[in-house]
Structure formats: C-alpha cells, structure tokens
C-alpha cells in the first residue's frame, strides 16, 4: 500500500517532467554533451597515447642501437620517458593536463617533466574541460536541480499537495515518490553517458582492470548524484515557492561546483606557499655547492674518499688502483647529488601534499571537490599517479646511471680513460622503464575525507527530508516558508 502510493507519486511527477519542455530539452542537452565529451575526450586521449607510445618505442630503439660509447657519454645521453595516461583518462583526465608528459633522465640532475597539455592550451582551459567527468560532476547536478526544484513546491503552489494528502498519501510517501522520480530522470541522463564510457573502456586493452575502476566510478557518481536528488527534493519541500527553491538550489550549485574548487585551491596555495621553479633550482644549487663536487678536483669530500680507497687497496696513487678512480668519483658524486635533489623534491612534494590536505578537508563542505577527488582516484589520474610516475622514473634514472658508473669503474681503465668504449651489445642489457601505476584500493583508501564527505552529502539531506516530513502538510499552506 505504502509503496504503491510512493510509486504513484513518482509516476505522476515523471509524467509532469515529461511534459515540461525545459526538462526534456535539458535532458537531451546533457546526454548529448555527455556523449560528445566521451567521443572527443576519447579521441584526444587515444591520439596522445599513440604519440607517446610511438616516441617511447623510438627512444628505446635509439638506446639499444647506440654505437660503442664511453659510459660517461651515455650518462649524459640519458633516457627519455613519456608518461602514459591511465586507460580511463578519457573519462576523467584528473590532474594529467597539468603534469608534464616527457621526462629526460640523465646523470647529475633530476629534470622536471615538460610539455603538459595545459601549456599547450589557450586561456579557455580555465573555464573547465569538456570531459565525461565534468558533465557528470558539474552539469548533471544542475540538470537535477532544473528537473526537481518544483517537485514538491509545485504541488503546493497548484494546491495539489493537499489533494494528495487528502487522498491518503503520507508526507513520507510523497517525498519518497519525488525522490524516486527525480532520481529516475537523473539516471536517464547519467546512464547513456556511463554506457558509452563503458563501451569505449571495453575496447581498450586493459578491460579487466578498467571494469573494477568503472564500477567504483559508477558507485561514486551514483552516490554523488543521489545526494543532489535528495537535496533538490528537500529544498523544494522546504521553500514556500518553487521560484525561491530554484534560486536557493542554483546558489548552492554555484557555491559548491564553481566557487569552492577555485577558492579552495587559492586558499591552499596561500596557506602553504611553494617556491617557484627559479627559487627551487637556486636552492638545489646552493645545497650542492661544496658538498662533493665531482667535477672539482680539490673537493674535500673526494680527497678524503681518495685516501680511503688508497688505504683499502694498499696503493700509493689512484693510477695503481685495480678499479677506475674516475668512475668511483662519478658514482659517489651521483649518489650525493641525487640525495640532495631528492630531499628538495620531497620537501616540495610535502608542500604539495599539505595543499592537497586543505582541499581534502574542504571536500567536507563541497561534495563536488570530494566527488572529483574520488573520480580521479578511480580513473587512475590523481596526483598519486603523477607522483608514482615521477618516483619510479627517478628510481630508474638512478639505477641506469649507477650501472653506467659501475661499467666505468670496472670496465674502463683509468689510463687513457676517455678513449675507451663499451661494446654496443651492453646497451641492450639495460632494463627498460615500465612504470606501475598505483592500485585502485590504495588510491581510494588514501582519501578518507572524500569518502566521508560523500557519505555526509547523502546523509544530511536524507535526515533533513525525514525531519521535515511531518511539517510538510503545514508548510506553505498559510503561504509561509521556513
């Protein structure tokens, strides 16, 4: 009996929305934007991925086909790696557009990745990107508002609310029916976008991993949109006129989806300032000065090291060492400079994480921030993916540089050092760089605030609806709101 009433109310509301040409027009608009965004973003992501894969193959071939070379020569020749986007980056590019895509790994220095999408974009990018994630996260809530702002208030304005109550529907059944119907319309908009996304993800090579990630995305967006549906019906039931409900809901949408992310980013940057590239480079140079300069023959650190080696091998000069002293200096120097640079890099990253912390906590106030955060985590395009790439590339860099230094120490004679070469077969024995992106579980458990925020986002309007249920018949009957 109760369920029947609820369904009746829902069917009534769906009928009303189907006749509302604005709602139908907006539904068509949102769905087409969603589908266009999947197609566009997928095409863009595919061509980017193809390019990076092509150049990665080229660079690996160039490495393997090197002529015989002195190992220190190869240290400067270095290696180029390109950051691959996650398979679902076309759905939510996350922070990918703002992180560099190509990274040059060489001896003596940690380079920063260059060529991000953002640097190739014009000022338009600041208004947002057309991606399925934007359509679901930003546009769909506004559609939910447009479809549902008059759901309860409209009945009251037309006087049909009393009629419904008189016919025996309880306030809870009415609210439930409204939530169901607005939710159904939201689902009608989200489902096509989700299906197209899933279809394209299935075509990609990593379908099994994508499936779990897609499920996580579906769950996240379902919760996020459910919150909007509940909020819309709640506000509609509280306001005396549907016009006032619309104004309030639009204001909430602007505050949560437009203002909060930018204000949050700005606050985070102000509270935890970071050095500019120029300042950062200057700090690293400063720290490296005087501590183990491998190119400075009178460096105190290397003088001490030389004495240690001479004592260990019981010889009087570096020429008599059974190993190549030049290689030793290069190897030890690399260790020192890498450590100093990594320390500074970690300090910078720690500052980034503190900034991220502010955003994470603000997610409790703006579910849009929380939903975005979870969305990029599930798509595998969050900051942790960028950082994992950087850290693994750095580990790879250090590994190949020290292998080259070891070749220098053991395979090259100290005498007439620079004239010697390593045979070309050696280059094919080096490991190739195959980064491991962070797992889904890890990415999600790192985001307790965002998960909590999404729970809160559903709980608050749900409780509000429950508490406001009893007052529904009285509200607005005498023309007054809350």
């Amino acid at each position, binding site marked *: 009996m109760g369920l029947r009433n609820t369904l009746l109310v829902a069917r009534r509301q769906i009928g009303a929305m189907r006749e509302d040409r604005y709602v139908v027009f907006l539904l068509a608009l949102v769905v087409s934007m969603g589908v266009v965004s999947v197609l566009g973003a997928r095409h*863009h992501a595919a061509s980017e991925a193809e390019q990076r894969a092509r150049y990665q193959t*080229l660079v690996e071939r160039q490495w393997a086909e090197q002529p015989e070379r002195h190992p220190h020569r190869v240290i*400067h020749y270095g290696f180029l790696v390109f950051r691959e986007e996650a398979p679902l980056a076309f759905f939510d590019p*996350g922070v990918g557009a703002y992180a560099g895509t190509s990274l040059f790994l060489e001896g003596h220095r940690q380079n*920063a990745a*260059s060529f991000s999408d953002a640097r190739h974009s014009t000022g338009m990018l600041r208004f947002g990107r057309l991606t399925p994630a934007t359509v679901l996260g930003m*546009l769909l809530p506004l559609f939910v508002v447009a479809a549902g702002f008059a759901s309860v208030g409209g009945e009251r304005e037309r006087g049909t609310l009393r009629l419904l109550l008189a016919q025996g529907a309880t306030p809870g059944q009415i609210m439930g029916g409204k939530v169901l119907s607005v939710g159904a319309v939201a689902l009608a908009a989200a489902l096509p976008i989700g299906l197209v996304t899933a279809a394209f993800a299935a075509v990609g090579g990593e379908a099994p991993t994508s499936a779990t990630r897609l499920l996580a995305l579906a769950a996240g967006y379902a919760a996020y949109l459910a919150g909007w549906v509940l909020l819309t019906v709640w506000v509609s039931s509280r306001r005396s006129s549907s016009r006032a409900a619309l*104004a309030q809901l639009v204001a909430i949408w602007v505050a949560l989806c437009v203002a909060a992310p930018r204000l949050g980013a700005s606050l985070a940057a102000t509270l935890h300032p970071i050095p500019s590239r120029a300042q950062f480079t200057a700090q690293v140079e400063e720290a490296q000065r005087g501590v183990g300069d491998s190119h400075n023959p009178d460096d105190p650190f290397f003088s001490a090291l030389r004495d240690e080696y001479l004592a260990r091998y019981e010889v009087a000069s570096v020429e008599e060492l059974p190993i190549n002293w030049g290689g030793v200096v290069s190897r030890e120097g690399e260790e020192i400079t890498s450590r100093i640079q990594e320390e500074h890099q970690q300090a910078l990253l720690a500052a980034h994480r503190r900034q991220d912390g502010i*955003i994470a906590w603000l997610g409790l106030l703006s579910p849009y921030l929380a939903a975005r955060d979870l969305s990029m985590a599930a798509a595998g395009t969050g900051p942790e993916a960028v950082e994992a790439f950087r850290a693994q590339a750095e580990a790879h860099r250090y590994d190949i540089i020290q292998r080259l230094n070891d070749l220098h120490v053991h395979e090259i004679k100290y005498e007439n050092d620079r004239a010697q070469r390593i045979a070309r077969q050696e280059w094919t024995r080096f490991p190739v760089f195959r980064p491991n992106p962070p797992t889904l579980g890890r990415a999600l458990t790192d985001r307790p605030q965002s998960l909590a925020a999404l729970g809160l986002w559903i709980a608050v309007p749900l409780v509000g609806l429950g508490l406001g249920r009893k007052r529904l018949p009285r509200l607005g009957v005498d023309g007054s709101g809350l």
Partner: protein
Amino acid sequence: MRSESTVAWIRLIRLEFARVIRSGGVAAAVLLLLGLGVYASWQGNRRIQAAEAATSAAETAYRDQLAYLSSIYPPTTEAGEPLYYLAFPAPQPPSRLSALASGRMAVETASLRIRLLALEGQLYEHETLNPRLAAAGHLDLAFVLIALLPLFVIAVTYDIVSGERERGTWRMARLFARPRRLIAAKIAARVVLATGLVTSPALIGAFSTGIDADGRAGWAIALIALHTLFWFALCLGVAGGHRSSTANAMILVGVWVALTFLAPAVLSLTNALLHPVPEALELTVRQRQGYHEAWDLPRAGTMESFFEDYPKWSDWIVPEDEFTWAWYYAMNHRGDQAARDASHAYRDILTRRDEWARRWSLLVPPLATQIALDRLSSADLGTQLAYQEAVRSYHERLKAHFQPFLFSAAPMAQVDWDRVPSFEPAVPAGDAPQAGLPAAAALILISVCALLPRIRSRPSPDS
C-alpha cells in the same frame, strides 16, 4: 523642463535602487561578491609579488653561481668549462594588469635560466605547480567579474517585469511612469548596483598597488563594463517578455552555463583536436639525438654545419684528436639544428591554437572578454611564445658574445662578466587597441542582438 524630467528620472532610479538592495538576499550577495572580488585582487597582487620574487631569484642565483665558479676554477681555466655550468637569467617581469587577469601565469615559467648548451631542451621547463590545485582552477578578479558577476545580474533582473506581474503590482507601477521608462529605470538602478558596489571597488583594489600607464588598463576596464552590460542586455531581452519568472530564471541560468562553461569547454576541446602537437616530443627526441650523435661522428662534419649558421668562424680548423670547447658547443648547436624544423612546427601549431582561440572566442562574450584580458595583461599563450622567442634571441646574443673566447680557447680571466649581454624581456604581443577592439566590438554587437526582441516588440503588455 528638461532638468525637471532628469530629476524625476534620477528619483525613479533611486527609488528602484533602494527597493533592489532591500529585497531578500541582494545585500548579502553584494557583500559576498565584493568580498570575493577584494580577495581576488589581493591574490592578484600577491601573484605579482611572487612573480617578481622569481625574477630576482633567477638573477641572484646567477650571481651566486658566477661567484662560486670563479672561486673554484683557477683563472687560467678555459672559459668554455665554467660556461658549461653557468645559467644566465632570462626574467620576464609580470604585467601590472595581471593583478586583474592572471591567465596562464600559473602554468608558465617566466624566469628561465639558460645555459650556453643546446637551447631546445631548456625552454620548456615546468613550474613547480601542484597539479591538483591547477586542475581545480584558479581564482582571479577576472573570473569573479566574468563568470560570477553575471549570475548576480541574472538574480536581480530575471523577474524585472514578470515579478511585478506575478505580484500584481505592474498596473500600479505603470501609473508612475511609462513601461519603457520604468524598465529603463529598473535596469539603470541595477547597473549602478553591479558596477558601483561590486566592480569598481574590486578594480580599485586590484590596481591599488600601481598600474601601467599605457592604455591597457583602460581597455580592460572598458571590456569588463561592456561584458557586464551584455548580461544586462541579455537579461532584459529574456526577462522583458511574457514568460513566468521561473521560466526566465531557468533560461538565463541555462544561457549562463552554456556561455561560461559549455562553450569554452567545447571550443577548447575542438581546438586541441584540430591542432595536435606531436612536435613537442619530436623536437625533444631530435635535439637529444642531434647533439649526442655528434660525439661519434667526425668533427669536421659537425663544424661544417656549425659554419653554415656562423660563417664568421669558418676559417678555424678544429683538431680531430683533441677536445676543444669550440667543438663541444658546436655539437650543442647541432642538437638545436636537428630540432629546428620540429621546433618551428611546434611554434606554428601553438600560434595557430592561439589565433583560433582568439577568433572563435569572439562568439562567446565571457570568453571574448577573458581572452582579450589575458592578452592585455600579457598572460596568454601568445605572450608565452613571445617570451620563448625573446629567450631564443638572448641565447643567440650570448653565443655571439662567447664564441670569440671559445674559438681562441681563452682563459676565463679574460671574460669581463660585467659586459655579458643581459636579457631583454619580450614586449607585450599586440598593442592595446589591437587586443581589446575585436572583443569590444563583438560584445557590443552581441548585446544589440540580445536586445533585438525587446526593441521590436511593445514592452511587456500586462496580459
């Protein structure tokens, strides 16, 4: 007679002004926007300070490095050796106007330091920015005035006629003035509210720390004013009709979302799809290969291609069997030569993206305003390309300056470091009218089009 009607007119506007500001939520919205605007101007000025700190950091770091290198190398060392390390500063001071519109400042590196080595690998270094914050979008005064202020305009005008009609006060109001006049007064009061209480104080805040006196600021202010007026024109065009307040509100908010978020996002994606940039990776790979191959090739060949660009030195013979710095830097030049075509193609594509964006943005008022403001405040893609060009020419001047020392294998003691060329910042791309005029014309034209339905029909007959 005339003055009497002016007095009546002003009184009408004042009455209306008092009514609007007292209506629910308007005062709070004004305060909120004003607060955001003042915060954004404060942030804008902080950004300028940060950019200035970066430029001076680059210069200080250069001096420190020079002092250090001079201290560890004996004066007899060949100049080529310390020059391998020395990174010369190329600081681009920020424009004062970027307190208003910071454009792409956050993603660009404005204070590169460049070494005498191959240049292409040094031009594209990234800022230390936190990608998550960058992805969230940034808040500058331009965003408040271009994206958020229109929503306020919508909120105070969407029921300008329908509200009176729905409350049943329209007939009474008509007793005081003719409908056209009444609507004009209502709009005027709201224009005064938006520009007087929000835009002006925020702009004053942004320019409080100084302003360049070259007409750019004037154009920027004019564009913001025109953009605000466009929204009033659009609101009047929609809200002057017969629809209900709710329908007006939905249409106007829909148009706002379409113009402020959808259109830019669609255009941005189209631009990226039309103009892909594979050259970015191509030039990186080519430069690295071009330079490193030279180590394994006969030196005469490397020098040949070097002399093609610098025929002045073609009489010099570089020995095959010993290391010379002249050859070393010629190898680096070979890297840039190898990347030259790809680098040109890369710049061409970005220039095309920039021009395409400027052309198509004219159809979308918020975008036209934003892109023109970015250009006026030297924070657009074109400015970044001009900066890279300035760095290229600085690199050439440095090379020309040091080549005599390299070819003669001169000791570093011979270098007079005070006479080393210094960087000449890029001049802003396009003069002020050139940057502002198309957007201003587009805004006026689109505003007139938005008003057309109201000009042709009788103003809001109260049916």
